[in-house]
């Protein structure tokens, strides 16, 4: 199971969903779905998010055995 801290990190940086979506060239709904855990990103999008926040991927996305 893949969990993430995207919402927490985004709020720490004071960024709106719309702004993050624009920067990553995805829709705002995609950011919302990622934050709710309804959608798991591709490895490319995960890297883009990590680079945007200048954090290692594993600090944003956490893999847990079910």
């Amino acid at each position: 199971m893949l969990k993430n801290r995207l919402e927490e990190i985004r709020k720490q940086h004071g960024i709106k969903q719309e702004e993050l979506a624009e920067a990553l060239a995805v829709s705002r709904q995609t950011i919302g779905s990622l934050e709710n855990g309804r959608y798991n990103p591709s490895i490319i999008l995960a890297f883009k998010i990590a680079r945007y926040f200048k954090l290692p991927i594993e600090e944003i996305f956490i893999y847990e055995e079910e």
Partner: protein
Amino acid sequence: MKKGSAVRNVMVLATGILLLAAGLLEVGDMARNVSGLCIGIGSGLIGMSIANLIMIRYYAKHPTFKRQHEIEAGDERGIAINNLSKAKAFDTTVRIMMVIPFVLFFMDLPVWTTFAVIAFYMFSIGLRYYYIVKYSKVM
């Protein structure tokens, strides 16, 4: 020439007008079905190119809307949803096509209708396996 360029769409529009005119005027000894085909394709091309030209003009005036449209078209979640819905629609269509030959058989219709549906079913399944092999080689 870019796929969505105005020049390309003007050329498609001109082709559509020519085809429509040829169909309506029945140029030469054109058969009725060929004339109908020209009218159909011509009308389709005219409609499509006019719609594209309107969108190109609209995007030129509203670049933010264009950017939004580009983002939505390339959005990976949107693409995943689209692909999943296409896959589900294919599965449902194939299941329905498995039942149709029996319905046609019991409706006492000519046997070729049943065979046509079976052939189309086999074609769909064949196409699916063709793409499985094709993508297995590249992925």
